[in-house]
C-alpha cells in the first residue's frame, strides 16, 4: 500500500473534512420494507444500505434445518449500480466472504435455540457503496432483526477504525481504505461488552492495534446510540416515558 498523497492536512482534517475521531453522518430508519418481518435502511456517509429480515420461517430445503436451533442465513449483495463502474450482480468472492462474517457477527447476539427447526433470513442490499459497507450492513441488519421481534441478547453495533498517514482514525471511508495504511472493521455488543467481528487489512504495531480497537469500540458505542434512537422512534414515537392509559 503506497500512499500517493496526504490524506490528513496540516489542520488535522481528513479528505472529507472530518477530524480523526469523527464518524460520518448516520441516518437510520426502521421498517422500510413492508413485506419483510423486520427491516432497516441506513445511510452511513455515502453508503446507502437496505437490510430486510424474514423469519423465523420454515426452512427450504428441509434438510438444512437443525433439530436444536434455528439456521441463520445472510446474504450481502451489492447492486450493479452501487459503484462507479458497474458491478457484476453475481455474488463475488468478496460478497460471499462478507455474508459469512456478517452471519458470524450477528449470531452471538441472537437466541437461535429459541426457534429450533426454523430459519431466519437476513438480506443486506447495498444501493450505494462508499467504504465501510460491511459495518453499516451489520448495523442495519441488527436493527432489522430487533424489528422482526427475534429474541436477542444484545444489539450489534459496528464501526471501523484504521491507519491513515501513520495516524489512527475512526470510520475509514472509501479513499482512506484504498490509499490508507490499515482498515479494521469491528462489530461490538455494547451491553455485553463483547466483540463479534474483528478483521484487519494492513499492518499495525502492537500499540497501534490497541489504539485502533479502542477507537473502533468507541465508534460502535456512538453507532449504538443511533440504533437505539431509531428503534425507539419507530415503536414509541417521541414518547420516551410510558404513559398509562386509563
Amino acid at each position: 500500500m503506497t500512499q500517493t498523497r496526504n490524506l490528513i492536512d496540516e489542520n488535522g482534517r481528513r479528505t472529507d473534512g472530518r477530524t480523526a475521531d469523527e464518524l460520518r453522518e448516520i441516518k437510520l430508519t426502521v421498517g422500510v420494507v413492508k413485506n419483510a418481518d423486520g427491516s432497516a435502511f441506513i445511510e452511513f456517509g455515502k453508503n446507502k444500505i437496505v437490510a430486510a429480515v424474514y423469519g423465523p420461517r420454515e426452512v427450504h430445503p428441509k434438510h438444512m434445518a437443525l433439530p436444536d436451533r434455528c439456521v441463520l442465513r445472510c446474504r450481502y449483495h451489492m447492486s450493479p449500480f452501487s459503484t462507479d463502474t458497474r458491478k457484476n450482480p453475481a455474488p463475488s468472492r468478496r460478497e460471499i466472504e462478507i455474508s459469512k462474517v456478517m452471519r458470524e457477527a450477528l449470531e452471538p447476539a441472537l437466541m437461535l435455540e429459541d426457534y429450533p427447526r426454523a430459519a431466519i433470513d437476513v438480506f443486506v442490499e447495498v444501493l450505494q457503496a462508499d467504504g465501510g459497507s460491511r459495518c453499516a450492513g451489520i448495523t442495519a441488519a441488527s436493527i432489522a432483526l430487533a424489528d422482526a421481534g427475534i429474541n436477542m441478547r444484545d444489539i450489534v453495533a459496528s464501526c471501523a477504525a484504521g491507519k491513515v498517514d501513520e495516524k489512527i482514525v475512526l470510520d475509514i471511508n472509501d479513499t482512506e481504505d484504498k490509499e490508507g495504511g490499515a482498515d479494521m472493521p469491528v462489530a461490538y455488543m455494547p451491553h455485553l461488552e463483547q466483540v463479534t467481528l474483528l478483521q484487519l487489512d494492513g499492518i499495525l504495531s502492537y500499540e497501534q492495534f490497541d489504539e485502533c480497537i479502542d477507537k473502533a469500540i468507541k465508534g460502535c458505542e456512538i453507532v449504538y446510540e443511533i440504533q437505539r434512537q431509531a428503534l425507539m422512534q419507530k415503536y414509541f414515537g417521541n414518547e420516551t416515558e410510558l404513559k398509562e392509559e386509563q
Partner: protein
Amino acid sequence: MGMQEIKRKFVVPGDRITEGSFRPSMNVIKVGNSIIATRIGIAEAGRDGIKVIPLSGVYIPRVNDIVIGKITDHSSLSWEVDINSCFSGHLPAQDVFGRDFSPARDDMGRQLAIGDLITARIIVFDRTRDPMLTIQDKDLGKIPRGEFLKISATRVPRLIGKRGSMIQTIEQATQTRVLIGQNGIVVVTGRNPEGIKLAVRAIRMVEEEAHTSNLTQRVKVLLNVPDTPQQTEGASVTQTEKGQKVEEIQSTIQEVEEEIEEEVQKGEKL
C-alpha cells in the same frame, strides 16, 4: 419482593430492566444479577416475574392458544393446517372421526377440504415437533364464511382490549362478529357488507396504531360511536350476551395464559 416498585417502561433488546433477585418471565434473560430484555416492547413486573410484552414478531405457537388456520393438505391420518407460523399445525383424523377412525372407511375430504378455515386449540407443542390441534371444543371447528385478514400476532391483545372492550366496540358499532385467533388471523362475519368493510378498517387501524395511547377514542371516532355508549333497546339483549361471552373467553384466555407461563417456568427450571 417489591415487584410493584418496577415501573413499566419501553425497552429494546439488551436493555437492563432491573437488578436484584427477580424471576425472569417472558422475553427476558438473567445475566449475572440483572434482568435483560430480549425484545422490543414494554417491560413490567407480573405475578410470575419480570416480563416484556413484545411489540413485534411472528407467531410462535403456545399450548392452549386458540388459533385460526387454513387446511393446506391431508395425509391418510391427519390434516396439515397453516397456522401463520414457522411450524405447521397437525389435526389428527381421530380428533374429528373419533377413536375408531379408519382411513379405509372414512373420507377425510368430506369433513374438511383443502382451503377450509378452522378455529382450533393447540393441545400439544414443545418446539421439537409440530403443534397438534383439536377442534373438539365449544366454539371450535370449521368457519363457513367471513372476511379473512391477517394482523401481527403481537397486536392481538390490543385488538381484544381490556376485558374485550376494543373488539366489543367494533362488533357493536358495525353489527359484525369478529373471530380472532391468537396467531393473528381474524375473520369478520356479518350480514351487512358495509359493516364488514368498516370493521376491517377499524381492525387495520388498531394494528397500525397499537402502541399509541387513546386508541379506543380514535376507533370510536372512526366508527361514529358516541363516547358514552347508549345501547338501543332492541339490540341491547344480544349485545350484552355477546359482551358476556367475550368477557368469558377473555378471562379464560388470561387464566390459561397464566397457567402456561407457570408451566413454561417449571419447564425451564428442569
